[in-house]
């Protein structure tokens, strides 16, 4: 707190001119919501890695079956129950791709050599001699399809239902919420078993069954959000300007819920995959020769001791997909959460 007497020339004390329009200038670059969120997701290494893995898995789900010369549903009983063998990797003994299996007494043998099979089955074959590599990717494809469709239907029903219930409020809201509670109260499995008894087991009934029971959480989340936004001043401002209900919901409310909706959907995808696998595993799922990850695990389970690879490979795939989707959803939640803004 001292007066510093430094030499300053007198003309420095002449009035300066400042452009008044500049005082309102904003120097930060303009970032919209998506750019801002992407910056945050990018910081989360786990989420980015998971996203990359998901993209690769989805890509292979479509391309994978074309990479081998064998089709997923072609049976070749001569070559059944062959262990994984990959060209080039077969000589590296500690990798599980050398075409050997273990007997119960612990001795190793090579069924390819014993049965004089020339072909290379990358992930081995199942009890009917179908190529597991092709079946795995076909199964992933179907599992993902079911999960995405179920999540999409969930989202459409849930968002609409929740928005209507929250926005109208009053008696309508009460009735709609009681309906949700009843649906939540019935165990999923009962609904699904009934559905599948009525319709024949297949992709569509499974999607319907999962969607029918899954939308309630989305509806609840959206309703809570609508209730929150209903009294926000920007919504009141739109009302005083004479905006219609539709425009208030679609222009002002839903865009502000994108974050929550996306996160909820991202969490419901792995749930749907798991539920589908579970249904297939207990035999209510897809029918032969169609494959999903659940049916593959189920098939492998029957010969788990003799041919462990038949179950391990699809199980790893289920775990990988679930972990990745959960990590991405977690990363998105952190990115979208306005409280984390700094």
């Amino acid at each position, binding site marked *: 707190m001292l007066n510093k007497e430094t030499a300053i020339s007198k003309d420095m004390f002449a009035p300066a001119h400042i452009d008044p329009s500049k005082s*309102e200038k*904003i120097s930060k670059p303009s*970032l919209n*919501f998506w750019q801002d969120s992407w910056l945050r997701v990018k910081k989360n290494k786990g989420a980015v890695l998971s996203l990359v893995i998901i993209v690769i898995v989805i890509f292979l789900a479509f391309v994978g079956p074309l990479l081998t010369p064998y089709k997923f549903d072609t049976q070749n009983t001569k070559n059944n129950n062959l262990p994984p063998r990959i060209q080039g990797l077969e000589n590296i003994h500690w990798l599980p791709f050398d075409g050997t299996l273990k007997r119960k007494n612990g001795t190793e043998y090579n069924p390819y050599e014993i049965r004089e099979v020339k072909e290379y089955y990358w992930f081995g074959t199942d009890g009917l001699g179908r190529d597991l590599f092709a079946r795995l990717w076909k199964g992933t494809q179907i599992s993902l399809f079911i999960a995405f469709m179920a999540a999409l239907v969930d989202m459409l029903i849930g968002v609409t239902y929740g928005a209507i219930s929250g926005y109208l409020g009053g008696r309508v809201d009460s009735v709609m919420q009681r309906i949700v509670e009843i649906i939540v109260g019935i165990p999923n499995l009962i609904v699904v078993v009934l559905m599948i008894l009525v319709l024949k087991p297949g992709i569509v009934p499974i999607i319907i069954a999962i969607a029918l029971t899954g939308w309630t959480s989305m509806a609840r989340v959206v309703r809570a959000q609508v209730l929150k936004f209903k009294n926000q001043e920007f919504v*009141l*401002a739109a009302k005083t300007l*004479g905006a219609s209900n539709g425009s208030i919901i679609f*222009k002002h409310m839903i865009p*502000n819920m994108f974050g929550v909706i996306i996160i909820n959907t991202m969490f419901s995808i792995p749930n749907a995959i798991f539920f589908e696998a579970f249904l297939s595993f207990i035999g209510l799922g897809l029918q032969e020769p169609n494959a999903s990850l659940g049916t593959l695990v189920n098939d492998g389970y029957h010969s788990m001791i003799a041919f462990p690879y038949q179950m391990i490979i699809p199980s790893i795939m289920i775990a990988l997909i679930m972990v990745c989707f959960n990590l991405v959803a977690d990363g998105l939640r952190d990115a979208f959460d306005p409280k984390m803004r700094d």
Partner: protein
Amino acid sequence: MSERKKLLEIKNLKQYFNEGKPNEVKAVDNVSFDIYKGEVMGLVGESGCGKSTTGRTIIRLYDATGGEVLYDGVNVHGNKSKKELKQFNRKMQMIFQDPYASLNPRLKIADVIAEGIDIHGLAKSKQERMEKVYELLETVGLNKEHANRYPHEFSGGQRQRIGIARALAVQPEFIIADEPISALDVSIQAQVVNLMKKLQHEKGLTYLFIAHDLSMVKYISDRIGVMYFGKIVELAPADELYRNPLHPYTQSLLSAIPAPDPISERTRKRKTYDPATHNYQDNEPVEFREVTPGHFVLCSETEFKQYQAQSKQ
């Protein structure tokens, strides 16, 4: 004063929440006042006194439990066709309190401001729409470059001015300002108040200015109403209210506001208000009475006489 044109007449307005239930709240309880064309009517009171609810009920954000609001002689409440409602929306607009919550964070400023223009079809082409937006931005002291930015990039004062531009887009005659400056910093409050005054003179606007900051209200308002628990207890021209507050609640409120003046603060005497001091009898009519011309107080007959005597001195 009586010769001036009444723009808005509020008659026995009631807004009860949870009506008929044990937790009934009489947020606005039998409130009547007029607003003259071209004036600024201030409404003050503490949180929960019903001043914001009054404003929101007038503009139909809530449906009134009872009473009527006449705008230019036409009742605003009651059943209306969509067309009538839209016309009404253009005449009466609102400015909100929280500059952070009053702008949709996902819309660009241009779309925020143009919302009213779009709803009422006030621009024939995209170009005209943008021209109007630029003009409005300039009116509130911002510029073209701000049109493509998002609300979170602006400071509180700037956002509040954007909110004003949004209200002005439909060329209203009457604006309800619901605590427009209480969330702003002192130096920014003056900017917004000056802007509102300037707009009032240029466009001949009428304001209902709701606030709890009495010094700003006194500065901007022609007349001030003081609310307490859903009722207006005193209503008078601004200077009169400050010089001669009659209702004990008004007196307590005025004595509680700290002035930016250390000398007078050292000698400040604070008055407290206890509703029991009125000692109203059960059948005693407590009404809104005109003590001196233009100065109304909610009081009983005996108090009325006492206030009249007090005002003559």
